[in-house]
């Protein structure tokens, strides 16, 4: 299920982002890789919201950052509006950066605590040569667009609440009138009642400014609400890509099915009637992912043939793209889910890896 009319703003082709693991006594040796993103291909159509969901270690944040070249791709190709930006130098990239921006998860870490709001929101304008006359006016307008009062200009981030800071982050991202916005868990760190405000604001802004969103989150309910299509990631790969409407009604990949059944619904009647498929064990570490089908160690529908030796292909099925050998059989009910044995990861919980240098 690809972009219908080929009007892709962003094209990602077999993207891989590996982080080297270094260990050693005197000088660090390259002993392995954390395969944060391991072969992701997608198209993001102009004007759409593509949701990217998954749990820790699935690589969704890394994809978002790699698209903006904040992490260097290890392999693969990224195309923005027809231009291959995978290996562009910083000088060539800078003018393109005007058109693609990012908003971050942590409202407390994404704003420089020592800069005033005016300085923060005005920085993109100054960096790209629009910092002359009328800067103040532009900043005030931006603040107003995101629902903040004009006098916030002289204030500092620590004087604002989490939700207000996210608004500041939005104002900064919108300053240059970008086409594409990567939203990295923008509401996860906010209170429930504030999340809805920000989600609504983002929808409003999308309409007003004709924005294209890549919406990255772990909360499937929020993603489903705002997205047109959703990609489900697991251990660095896309397991399923489907229209948002359809994902809940018709999940095809065993991981999607398990994920959906694990999400609690705020309704005791519904909760008591659900039968959940409990995934056992921990999420495998991206430093050492299972061979062949990444999900086979925890998959309740695993089969003795193919799952352990052959890596599935992301293929079309019923309007989705699914990366599973037996998706049809699962859908038809020919395979019943089984309780698997819990495999807990031995050793250290997280490998120490270094994201590439600034």
């Amino acid at each position: 299920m690809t972009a219908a009319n080929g009007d892709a703003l962003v094209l990602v082709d077999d993207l891989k982002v590996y982080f080297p693991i270094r260990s050693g006594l005197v000088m660090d040796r390259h002993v392995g890789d954390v395969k944060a993103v391991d072969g992701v291909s997608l198209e993001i159509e102009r004007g759409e919201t593509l949701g990217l969901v998954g749990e820790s270690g699935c690589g969704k944040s890394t994809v978002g950052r790699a698209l903006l070249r904040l992490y260097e791709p290890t392999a693969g190709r990224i195309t923005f509006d027809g231009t291959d930006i995978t290996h562009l130098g910083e000088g060539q990239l800078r003018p393109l950066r005007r058109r693609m921006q990012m908003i971050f998860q942590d409202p407390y870490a994404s704003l420089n605590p020592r800069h005033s709001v005016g300085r923060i929101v005005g920085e993109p304008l100054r960096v790209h040569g629009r910092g002359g006359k009328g800067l103040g006016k532009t900043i005030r307008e931006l603040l107003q667009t995101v629902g903040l009062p004009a006098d916030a200009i002289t204030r500092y981030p620590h004087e604002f609440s989490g939700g207000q800071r996210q608004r500041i982050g939005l104002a900064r991202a919108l300053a240059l009138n970008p086409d594409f916005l990567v939203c990295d868990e923008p509401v996860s760190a906010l209170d429930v009642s504030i999340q809805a405000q920000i989600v609504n604001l983002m929808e409003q802004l999308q309409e007003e400014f004709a924005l294209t969103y890549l919406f990255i989150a772990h909360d499937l309910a929020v993603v489903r609400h705002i997205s047109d299509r959703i990609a489900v990631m697991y251990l660095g790969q896309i397991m399923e890509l489907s229209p948002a409407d359809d994902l809940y009604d018709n999940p095809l990949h065993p991981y999607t099915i398990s994920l959906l059944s694990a999400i609690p619904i705020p309704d005791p009647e519904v909760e008591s009637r659900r039968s959940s498929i409990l995934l056992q064990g921990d999420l495998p570490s991206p430093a050492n992912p299972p061979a062949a089908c990444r999900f086979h160690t925890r998959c309740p529908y695993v089969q003795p043939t193919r799952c352990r030796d052959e890596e599935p292909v992301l293929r079309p099925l019923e309007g989705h793209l699914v990366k599973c050998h037996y998706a049809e059989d699962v859908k038809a009910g020919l395979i019943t889910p089984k309780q698997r044995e819990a495999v807990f990861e031995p050793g250290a919980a997280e490998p120490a890896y270094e994201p590439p240098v600034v």
Partner: protein
Amino acid sequence: MSATRTPLLTVDDLHVRFGTSRGLVYAVNGISFDIAPGETLGIVGESGCGKSVTSLALLGILARNGRVTAGTAMFGGRDLLKLKDDELRSIRGREIAMIFQDPMTSLNPVLTVGKQLREPLEAHFGMDKGQADRRALELLEQVGIPGAKQRLRDYPHQFSGGMRQRVMIAIALACEPKLLIADEPTTALDVTIQAQILELLRTLVADRDTALMLITHDLGVVAGMCERVNVMYAGMFMETGTATALFAQPRHPYTLGLLQSVPRLDSGRRQKLMPIPGSPRNMLSDPSECPFAPRCRYEVEQSRQQVPPLEEIEAGHQVRCFNPVPADEWQRQRLGGAA
């Protein structure tokens, strides 16, 4: 409901304040509740509403600048809030246990898991190392940790988040407490791990007839785990009742607002989210009006003049509001599509 069993814990009119450099913070402003043996009570609210402070106050482990300024908490015939620290120590872990949100900081990183499991056993039951070890092994197996025997010698950093939470649960249940307080136990965990941990809690608590006080901001978690729910805002309960009643027919504008603003997997996709306007209440003053009034669509004149009392609106269902929402309002909105 809890009608037939005498409550295990009865909290009455609890008030907690903190002294900070910016003035007094009125963290808890008069809450009363009880828990019966074996019951699961959910306290749901957003950050800063005072829900965590409540549990810390009960166990006497508030920060140094926190003080209980009023109220009683009767447990086993004694008022927890009036007990001295060494009396409380015999209750903590033994009769009331607690698990926290972040297992990495609540487990001691320099002690082995086995040692941390043995600690309460040795302290409360006077077991020797051998007995305690055997019991610790049992506990690890009960919380579903494979290879438990070797795991006893491991350190917390060698476990993943989900496993550390299981260890915390094991430590908490080691002495078979009557009441388990779980403060955001799954907030830091991935969804599929969260489901495992909640299922584990559900089973263990049912098997042992332990009462569970589950504190969280997640309405979905509460819906799946709790028999009764208290909704907390600005240090007070806004609505209390059974989970079924509250979720089907919320009567308080805040509860309604929460339900309206949370996107649900099973609702129509383009159903408009109705956020609650404004920000959570500034806690630097003792409430003299309804604390939710500034953000409330249903406020009336009286809301600005005094704090509404918590009153029973139907059997077992209480609301603190001068203008409660009509009983069928939420269902009407849900079924009628976009509000």
